[in-house]
């Protein structure tokens, strides 16, 4: 569902231009408002929709599964750490969703990877990832299963 911009709402601030991972949100050279220059290349990630402070960006649903009359809109309130969705079906039913997007203050719990020791070859070859096992808070290390315990063949 590629995004599009309500030109009367947009004030050309550029938050969507900065955040678009596909770099397709641009500022229109005539009207100085944002626009999606290539809807075919839109990842439909909703980043611009959520980032827009004016709520000027919306998504155009594909006609086969989201026919005219529906509405999907998001409200991201980063200071509250929430994102709310309102889904309006074509027959008038409405569903509201509210989800947390963070439980920590923004920007404070960023891992300081540069301060860690440079890993040696053994650490790089190990299946453990950065910070593991300390970050997992499992004193005995990662649980392992002996290969002998696996039965032969494919099973579920």
């Amino acid at each position, binding site marked *: 569902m590629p995004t599009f911009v309500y030109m*009367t*709402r947009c*004030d*050309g*601030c*550029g*938050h969507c*231009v*900065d*955040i678009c991972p596909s770099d397709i949100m*641009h*500022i*229109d*050279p*005539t*009207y*100085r408002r944002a626009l999606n220059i290539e809807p075919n290349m839109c990842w439909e990630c909703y980043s611009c929709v959520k*980032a827009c*402070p*004016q*709520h000027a960006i919306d998504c155009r649903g594909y006609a086969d599964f989201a026919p005219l009359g529906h*509405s999907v*809109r*998001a*409200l991201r*309130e*980063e*200071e*509250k*750490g*929430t994102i*709310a*969705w*309102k889904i*309006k079906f074509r027959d008038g039913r409405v569903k*509201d969703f*509210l989800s947390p997007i*963070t439980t*920590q*203050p*923004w*920007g404070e719990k960023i891992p300081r990877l540069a301060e860690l020791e440079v890993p040696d070859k053994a650490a790089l070859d190990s299946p453990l990832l950065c910070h593991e096992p300390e970050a997992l808070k499992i004193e005995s290390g990662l649980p392992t299963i002996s290969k002998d315990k696996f039965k032969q063949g494919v099973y579920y």
Partner: protein
Amino acid sequence: MLTSNPFSELSSLIPPAGMQTYVVVMFLLVVGATILDVIHKKSAKYFFEKMKTAKERRAQPLSSATVVSVSVKTVVHDILTSAEFDNPQRRKAHLLTMYGFILFVVTTVIMIFSYPTPETPTPALVALLWHVGALMVCVGGYWFWFKMRVDVAAEGHKWYRLIPADLFILSLLATTTLALIWSLFGGTFLFALFIFASTVLFGSVFWSKFAHMFFKPAAAFQKRFAEADGSRDNLPEPADKPAQFGLGIKRDLPRHY
């Protein structure tokens, strides 16, 4: 210098009636081009249709007290103080340009219609406000042009690269800058340049961003009324949670404007 009326000094060259006719023609050009713009872009139709759909979606009826309070809030918040802009620099530049332009236009009209000749001496305050208005437009406008213009920083474009969207800001800056220079140094050539710039400014409304001063308030009213009547343009209600996590992506201002 700053307290003298440059138009009364000009009256020996151009009769006051000529200057007054020019102002009226410019006013008619703005009105006519705005009407043409509204017809061409179908903006009035768009706003009326939006109003109709918002009325259908209304969750609660609007009392007349709510209509008044929302209207006042919109005028104060969105129009008079440009609070729509999240970027404080952009807001300050816009306020300077907006109030500077209003001062400049109003005092121009006062000076040309009430004090057109040296026989009717202009109050120093009016002439001073004309100069201050032009200066405010210059400060806000050049700030915007050199520091904040769309795409200049992010796309690596030079400050002198011109696009159609620059027609309004450039003609506005040319008008006020040339007005100040002409007021300081005088001369027919500078006056001709000033008149050329102002004719471009008021004559290019159909192609420039000038009309934003009409449709942006309309968009602001539509948005505020959608919030007040509960339809909220289908947006979810704000979460009933405390604001406790600080700013996330909005900690950084966007590099595009």
